[in-house]
């Protein structure tokens, strides 16, 4: 964390950083790759976003939306363009991350789609899983791409715009009406040292038509630890009566930067579940936005942040109601060790038209070290008068009485602490509908070290 300077210094710094912050984004734009000939149609979309990026500056802690998350470390890091040949990755290298349950997967390495590692099989007729280039070749999909790529509300946000302006490809999932896709679809975004200090802009477009159902895993992975910047955007369209179960795992390297957007539009009677797990990155931000476009939608947001050392992990969520009879249930948990800092800001908008909304939000935080920090802020804006909205936030430590209770049953102190932290995390992990992924994550629940002279 940067210490607060004296007033006059802040003033001077302010001018300097404003220039830096604007130039910084323009500099990031210069690192993008050109579009391939197959994606010429995308040029206009990129150009529009480019024009907008040039008017924007990197947010500072003076912006309310970034109050607790200081991007100075991002500003101070120099990134490079992805260049040359994509890293060669063997099947064996990704094997530890593959999910036996997933019949289909798309693999992107340092932002580049690798068809040889990807599998698209056993799909319902007319469904599509592939990259943007291939998607555009499908005549039936063209209108969908033109009308829905980059068209979610909130697309004008700084990093989303930067992603759109830099887009060179995307993962596209399209499930036509009345199909249940049973096996989960796995989207892997891998970062390698082959592209050191790279900035990548992963992009996903997911369209699930009426009465269809999809289970999706979006997975950000570091193959070897290095400094890089992942600026991801995922757009999910859940059409009438459709169901999407979306698990998002951010396990980038501990020295990486990760800024991710998940924008979801939910049509009437649809169900959307997001299990968002944030483990990696020195600095990460997840903007999770759900927009209701029809009546009686159901939204479940399960979040888990597990960080240590000096990691900073920020989750900003939004559930924006516009219609009656919507329900949502959100639980966000943070386990914060060492000097790490977790931030949660949960917005729920319930305007007058959204009568009979039932929205619940709970933020639970476990601080495992005395230097750990969490900032949590529920933000409910309700103008409808006949709604149920409940929210709560707790911040706690491992109680010495809890640890002692387990010890008094013969369980050693480290195992006791592990069991208690595990129990706290498992509550969220257990919501993931894929057993192998659940087990992997459960096995990786951080064990806080015994720290003498601090919390027992």
């Amino acid at each position: 964390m940067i210490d607060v300077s004296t007033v006059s210094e802040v003033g001077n710094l302010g001018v300097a950083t404003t220039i830096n912050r604007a130039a910084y984004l323009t500099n990031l734009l210069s690192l993008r790759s050109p579009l391939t000939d197959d994606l010429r149609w995308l040029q206009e979309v990129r150009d529009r976003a480019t024009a907008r990026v040039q008017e924007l500056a990197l947010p500072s802690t003076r912006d309310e939306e970034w109050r607790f998350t200081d991007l100075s470390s991002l500003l101070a890091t120099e990134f490079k363009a992805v260049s040359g040949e994509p890293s060669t990755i063997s099947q064996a290298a990704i094997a530890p991350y593959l999910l036996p349950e997933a019949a289909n997967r798309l693999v992107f390495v340092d932002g580049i789609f690798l068809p040889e590692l990807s599998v698209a099989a056993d799909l319902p007729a007319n469904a599509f899983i592939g990259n943007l280039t291939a998607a555009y070749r499908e005549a039936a999909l063209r209108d969908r791409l033109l009308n829905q790529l980059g068209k979610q509300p909130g697309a004008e946000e700084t990093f989303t715009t930067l992603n759109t302006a830099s887009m060179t490809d995307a993962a596209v999932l399209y499930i036509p009406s009345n199909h249940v896709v049973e096996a989960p679809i796995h989207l892997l975004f891998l970062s390698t040292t082959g592209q050191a200090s790279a900035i990548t802009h992963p992009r996903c477009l997911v369209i699930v038509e009426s009465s269809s159902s999809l289970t999706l895993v979006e997975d950000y992975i570091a193959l070897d630890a290095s400094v890089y910047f992942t600026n991801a955007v995922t757009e999910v369209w859940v059409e009438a009566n459709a169901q999407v179960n979306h698990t998002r795992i951010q396990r980038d390297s501990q020295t990486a930067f990760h800024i991710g957007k998940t924008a979801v539009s939910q049509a009437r009677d649809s169900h959307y579940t997001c299990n968002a797990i944030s483990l990696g990155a020195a600095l990460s931000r997840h903007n999770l936005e759900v927009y209701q476009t029809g009546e009686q939608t159901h939204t479940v947001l399960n979040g888990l942040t597990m960080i240590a050392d000096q990691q900073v992990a920020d989750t900003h969520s939004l559930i924006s109601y516009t219609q009656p009879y919507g329900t949502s249930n959100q639980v966000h948990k943070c386990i914060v060790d060492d000097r790490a800092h977790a931030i949660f800001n949960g917005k729920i908008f319930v305007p007058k038209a959204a009568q009979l909304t039932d929205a619940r939000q709970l933020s639970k935080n476990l601080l495992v070290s005395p230097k750990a920090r969490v900032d949590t802020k529920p933000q409910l804006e309700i103008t409808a008068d006949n709604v149920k909205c409940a929210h709560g936030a707790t911040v706690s430590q491992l109680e010495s009485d809890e640890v002692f209770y387990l010890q008094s049953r013969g369980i050693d102190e480290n195992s006791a602490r592990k069991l208690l932290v595990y129990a706290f995390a498992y509550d969220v992990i257990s919501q993931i509908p894929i057993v192998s992924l659940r087990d992997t994550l459960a096995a990786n629940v951080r064990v806080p070290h015994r720290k003498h002279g601090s919390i027992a």
Partner: protein
Amino acid sequence: MICEGSEVILSVRDLTADVDGTQILKGLNLEVKAGEIHAIMGPNGSGKSTFSKILAGHPDYTVTGGEITYLGQNLLEIEAEDRARSGVFLAFQYPIEIPGVSNTDFLRIAYNSKRKHEGLEELDAFDFDELLQSKLNVVKMNPAFLNRSVNEGFSGGEKKRNEILQMALLEPKLAILDETDSGLDIDALKVVAGGVNELRTSENAVVLITHYQRLLNYIVPDYVHVMESGRIVTTGGKDLALELEARGYDWIREEEAEAIAR
């Protein structure tokens, strides 16, 4: 049952202890032999619960003097978990809730820690389940509680039954029951007391810490000790509990004051 010459399980001499710099125990002496049931009674704040936590090894309490010998070993040199594994069991006054850990898993981990300590092979989930089912009867517990998170949402009585179930499973050499009777209705009290009686043998010992004589109608003690200001001031048979119930604790203070005056 008092048997001459039976093994000394616990021997406490001149024990003094602090919590946050305040002296709570001021020279406590107690000897417990195999087969015996000891009741420790006394007013609130006399140090009964502190004593039980020190026996189990709670880190918040600092022993400043005296000694505790358990089966010939210096108990104070043994970590809390190793005390448990070697047969010291504390039934908590306020059992802790552990959301997210199923009661069965918790019991199995605890049971296997002890097996491992004894150099025995750990039981797998299947064999353990069989063992656990056989122990449920001791406290007449509904098996549905096994799948729930440890103590989460349990009533006071259910939590205490769960403590005795753990005792049944771990088969301690020395069981300390810290106000296990508090907050129990008469039916639950009978069940809990029945469980303790069933688990008692000539090889183990029980220390009951209680505020009320009521429990002692169901678990008959060999000795009743009265604690006052961090020491045991009077020791008697089971009739002492009845006298305390009828007369309160003040007469003990007066007798003690007279004794000191003499």
